[in-house]
């Protein structure tokens, strides 16, 4: 009979690899299974992260960084541009290198990493689940484990097999299309966000520079909007209008579960992390560092559960997440719901309001403070969330 792994992780994204590394470094046996043939490919991501969040989780390797971001520009439907002072910096990553390296670090810590291994079922056991069924090139095999982790991203099914309701509501699924464009005029230190019903209804469009006149240009719109018109057609319109001379280096689809975190991220000996647990910041759609952070919490709980041979300890992860980021994400979710309802006129009015401030007052907190007394509209929360949380989740 095959050995019993301490932990099997399904999915080798940033969340899975972070958890694999944490648990393997503590001396437990870890098997991480990835269905794709290449870790980090294809890249379905805008690749923006904040320096503070990333640094807290991992030693930042310069090879991961395509460009360093010092400015955010929020562009209203009428073209007015608001540039709040960030008070920090961030990066646009090369995720094909980043994800690959996180998996390499997990493997160096002792985790066994396997690609081309599609998990298509959980194997029931006496107390919870005994393992997973893996479809490889040579048919199906069973791998057994004491704890199973679903780090299987937006398309997660592991949680459902464990009895959790993990599907994303239509309105909460941000349906995305993204192109990496070349030969376009971009400023390498600025991330641009476009808002408006005609650009990206119930979502936003981003231009994240990657150096040498290239950028990730993409958009996400709620499933409610995608029902009427496809994200790809919105993106094609924008690109044709804004960058007619662009070379299109990649075109990808993607989905981001912009919901509040699942109520249960643990079921018996099954744990969910990252997009699979809906741990994305619902306003920005950023999920790289928040998934990694959750994975670290989950990793510590997994270690405790293994050490004490008590799956109940997995509940520590649920409690810690709920108290910290889970609570914050619920607030961001409410903000997102409000912002999604804004008409173009409201967005224009708010942008004009910010521009009327003296430039030195346009720091994020300055803007926020003035906004609270003048106009309590939630757009200010949006500025705050974009300005601070996607670049500094701890604000």
């Amino acid at each position: 009979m095959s050995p019993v792994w301490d932990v099997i992780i399904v999915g080798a994204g940033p969340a899975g690899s972070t958890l694999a590394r944490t648990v393997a470094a503590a001396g437990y046996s870890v098997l991480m299974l990835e269905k794709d043939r290449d870790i980090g490919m294809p890249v379905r991501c805008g690749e923006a992260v904040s320096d503070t969040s990333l640094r807290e989780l991992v030693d930042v390797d310069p090879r991961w960084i395509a460009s360093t971001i010092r400015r955010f520009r929020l562009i209203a439907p009428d073209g007015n541009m608001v540039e709040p002072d960030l008070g920090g910096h961030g990066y646009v990553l090369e995720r094909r290198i980043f994800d690959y390296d996180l998996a390499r670090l997990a493997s160096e810590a002792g985790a066994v990493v396997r690609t081309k291994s599609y998990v298509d079922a959980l194997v029931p056991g006496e107390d919870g689940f005994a393992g997973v069924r893996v479809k490889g090139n040579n048919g199906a095999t069973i791998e057994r484990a004491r704890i199973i982790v679903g780090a299987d991203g937006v398309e997660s099914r592991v949680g459902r097999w464990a009895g959790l309701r993990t599907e994303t509501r239509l309105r909460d699924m941000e349906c995305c299309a993204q192109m990496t464009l070349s030969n376009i005029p971009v400023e390498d230190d600025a991330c641009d966000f476009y808002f408006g019903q005609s650009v990206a209804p119930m979502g936003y469009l981003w231009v994240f520079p990657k150096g040498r006149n290239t950028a990730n240009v993409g958009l996400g719109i709620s499933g409610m909007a995608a029902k009427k018109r496809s994200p790809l057609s919105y993106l094609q319109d924008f690109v044709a209008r804004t960058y007619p001379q662009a070379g299109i280096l990649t075109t990808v689809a993607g989905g981001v579960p912009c919901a509040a975190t699942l109520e249960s991220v643990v079921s018996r000996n099954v744990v969910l992390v990252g997009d699979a647990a809906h741990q994305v910041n619902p306003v920005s759609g950023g999920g790289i560092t928040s998934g990694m952070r959750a994975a670290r919490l989950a990793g510590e709980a997994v270690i405790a559960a293994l050490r004490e041979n008590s799956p109940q300890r997995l509940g520590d992860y649920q409690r810690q997440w709920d108290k910290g980021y889970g609570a914050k994400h619920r607030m961001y979710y409410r903000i997102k719901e409000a912002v999604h309802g804004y008409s173009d006129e409201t967005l224009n009015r708010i942008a004009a309001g910010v521009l009327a401030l003296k430039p030195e007052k346009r720091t994020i907190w300055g803007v926020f403070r003035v906004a609270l007394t003048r106009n309590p509209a939630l757009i200010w929360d949006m500025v705050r969330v974009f300005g601070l949380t996607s670049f500094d989740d701890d604000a």
Partner: protein
Amino acid sequence: MYIPSLFTRKGPRVLLIQIKDDACDFCGCCVGVCPEDAIELQEARITLIEDRCTNCAKCVWVCPFEALIFLKPGAGVLPEAGK
């Protein structure tokens, strides 16, 4: 090209979901919203698990690339689907 049958275990299909393999990017958006866990997505293969699908159409609505479409039985779409 994947063509579902006209009947499910629960009776005749009212709405058919068809997957256009050539337009699909294997992004998983549709899997994430499917309430019935009725879509199987491997690296570059997507399949509808017909028994489970209730034709709710959520997957069709979210697909960023319009790779999922409705087929109405008898509406004259089926022959074209085979090409």
